[in-house]
């Protein structure tokens, strides 16, 4: 894949956030650039969870951070509730960001080790919340309780006194305290044990329905993404491969890269025989000099001449299931290719 196109975008009136043609380039030495994100378009509906999956370096975190302008994309647009975020001035963007919060991967390093938990969670309120400190404390306590942390015990403690899972819950409380609309979760469970991961995933589901949140959830574990997402976008080397309703994506992956990812994820079932003779050589190509045409072609078993010359565009393969590939694994009506 590794294709462009916007066939998978929905009616702008229906969506909460819509990003079009996002491009992020990081300049490096000798005038070269790292093509971190190259023409990605995405949208998220109110109350939906969008999962972003892909290998390290595929641009999934960069794409998600672009949505909240951290940093703003090199080119492309992000509209939120009809407001164009990329054209806002600093002050207006600062205000808009109270609606858009983020949870990071490493729960321990994302909390300031020298501050008390009560202060960490109250920080957003000191900037944007009510002036009254009693009211602030009330909000902080309510938020800590919502994530299952006893505020009376935790308030005066520091992050090192908590486990990884508890720190992640505190980060979630901090993200939620301003009552945001959208939360970007950047691999929030990757650093946690499976039992703690289950607690955090269940909690995110509960908080989402309680506070009417919209989530953008990044992970490299396909099972985790399926569990939490309504819609999943698969990325490879700065491009989108496949976007689909999540159950359908796993039941019938249309992109060879999605198939590779699914085939690689470990299954806790001893009867699933592993073919150990399959050891691929090589590596993901460099985003400094990505392959022409379809970026996945160098690792793709189905690649042909056409894949090197022509970049595949997003097209619909079934209802709410889109793929950017010249040789998708499910049959497609050729006419669907022009729908945009």
């Amino acid at each position, binding site marked *: 894949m590794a294709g462009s196109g916007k066939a998978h975008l929905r009616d702008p009136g229906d969506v909460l956030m819509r990003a079009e043609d996002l491009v992020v380039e990081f300049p490096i030495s000798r005038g070269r650039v790292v093509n971190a994100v190259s023409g990605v378009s995405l949208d998220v509906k109110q109350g939906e969870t969008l999962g972003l999956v892909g290998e390290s370096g595929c641009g999934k975190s960069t794409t998600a951070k672009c949505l909240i302008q951290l940093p703003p994309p090199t080119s492309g647009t992000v509209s939120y509730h009809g407001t164009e975020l990329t054209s806002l001035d600093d002050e207006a963007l600062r205000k808009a960001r109270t609606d858009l919060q983020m949870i990071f991967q490493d729960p321990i390093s994302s909390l300031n080790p020298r501050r008390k938990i009560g202060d960490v969670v109250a920080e957003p309120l000191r900037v944007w919340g009510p002036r009254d400190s009693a009211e602030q404390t009330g909000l902080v306590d309510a938020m800590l309780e919502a994530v299952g942390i006893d505020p009376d015990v935790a308030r005066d403690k520091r992050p090192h006194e908590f486990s990884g899972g508890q720190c992640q819950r505190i980060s979630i409380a901090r993200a939620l305290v301003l009552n945001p609309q959208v939360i970007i979760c950047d691999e929030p469970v990757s650093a946690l044990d499976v039992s703690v991961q289950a607690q955090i995933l269940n909690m995110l589901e509960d908080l989402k329905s309680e506070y009417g949140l919209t989530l953008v959830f990044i992970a490299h574990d396909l099972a985790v993404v399926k569990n939490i997402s309504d819609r999943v976008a698969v990325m490879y080397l700065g491009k989108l491969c496949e976007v689909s309703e999540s159950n359908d994506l796993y039941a019938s992956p249309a992109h060879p890269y999605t198939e590779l990812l699914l085939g690689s994820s470990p299954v*806790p079932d001893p009867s699933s025989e592993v073919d150990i003779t399959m050891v691929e*050589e090589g590596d993901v190509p460099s985003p400094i000099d990505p392959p022409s045409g379809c970026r996945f072609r160098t690792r793709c078993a189905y690649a042909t001449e056409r894949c090197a010359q022509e970049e595949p565009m997003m097209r619909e393969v079934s209802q709410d299931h889109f793929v950017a590939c010249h040789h998708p694994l499910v049959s497609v009506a050729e006419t669907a290719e022009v729908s945009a």
Partner: protein
Amino acid sequence: MNEATTTARDEPLLSVQDLRTHFSINAGLLKAVDGVTFDLQAGQTLGIVGESGSGKTVLSRSIMRLNLGNNVETSGKALFGGKDLLRLPMGQMTDIWGQEIAMVFQDPMTSLNPVVKIGRQVSEHVRKHLAVSKREARGLAVELLKSVRIPEAEVAIDSFPHELSGGMRQRVSIAIALACGPKLLFADEPTTALDVTVQHQILNLLGLQQSERDMAMVLVTHDLGVVAGRTDEIIVMYAGKIVEQSRTRQIFQNTSHPYTEALLRSIPKTDQPSHTRLAAIAGRPPNLITMPSGCSFSPRCPYAQERCFEEEPPLTVTKEGHATACWYQVGTEANRAAWDKNLAAGRPATLAVAEGQVIDEVPLDIGAGGA
């Protein structure tokens, strides 16, 4: 410990007996590994599974004698080829490292020396142990890098670790570990820092090398998915002790310890529909300094009864060789009675599982439409 299979068994390659590793720290005595016994036959793969802090890494490092520091006390035995590794002078241990037993570490970013070219790092062992010339060692290093499927090995040999990706670096660490043809390889979370596709490749590579060289392997991981199709036997550790040990298939199909059951249940699976409620394990792993009395899993266990809080269950072995340390093993009548009793009493750890279970039992086609 027992005759688990019908295959003819002679002397085990590695026999660990009642291994205990305790750290004295300011807060008290931390029992990281507390009485672990197992045997490993030549050419077999053993998986050690557990959460962070269960003692799985300390266990493998204790056998390797890598717990350096003067506040560590290790007791028990680790017999390897008739020698007790734990009593061996350090001078003799260095002859065993690399030649007899090797190790692959979790983080390929930090386990390689950043200022030494990988060719020299790979051939270092060969030069030390096998007394070959510099040129021969270089040839061997290229061969090794080829065997771990590093493309253009002749060029890669002159690169520094930072020039390679994480997956390639882990391949280099594997090449280093395999350099002198060890009989036993410890792989301590070898793929935890890597992507799923790379993880798949590295695990395949380890399996392939293992069968080619007839080497035994201990695969330490927190991911039951990683060990499922790749090990002969699995040990599940909790709070420094073995709670369940059996042939891989038995662990998954006849799970008998509540902790193993809970771990298996808490993993999200791709064949479940989206938004399936996961069965989380209530509570947190115990503090290894102030351990609960009785069974260390009892505070979190949905089946725990009075006896579990008072008496520590011994590791009992069935005639099939399935070892479990639990008074109320999963699948027994007593276990079902304990569940019903706890549910009726409203024990929170039981309710936490019960709520998950109700949702697990919803037919699988909810939300699976649209395919």
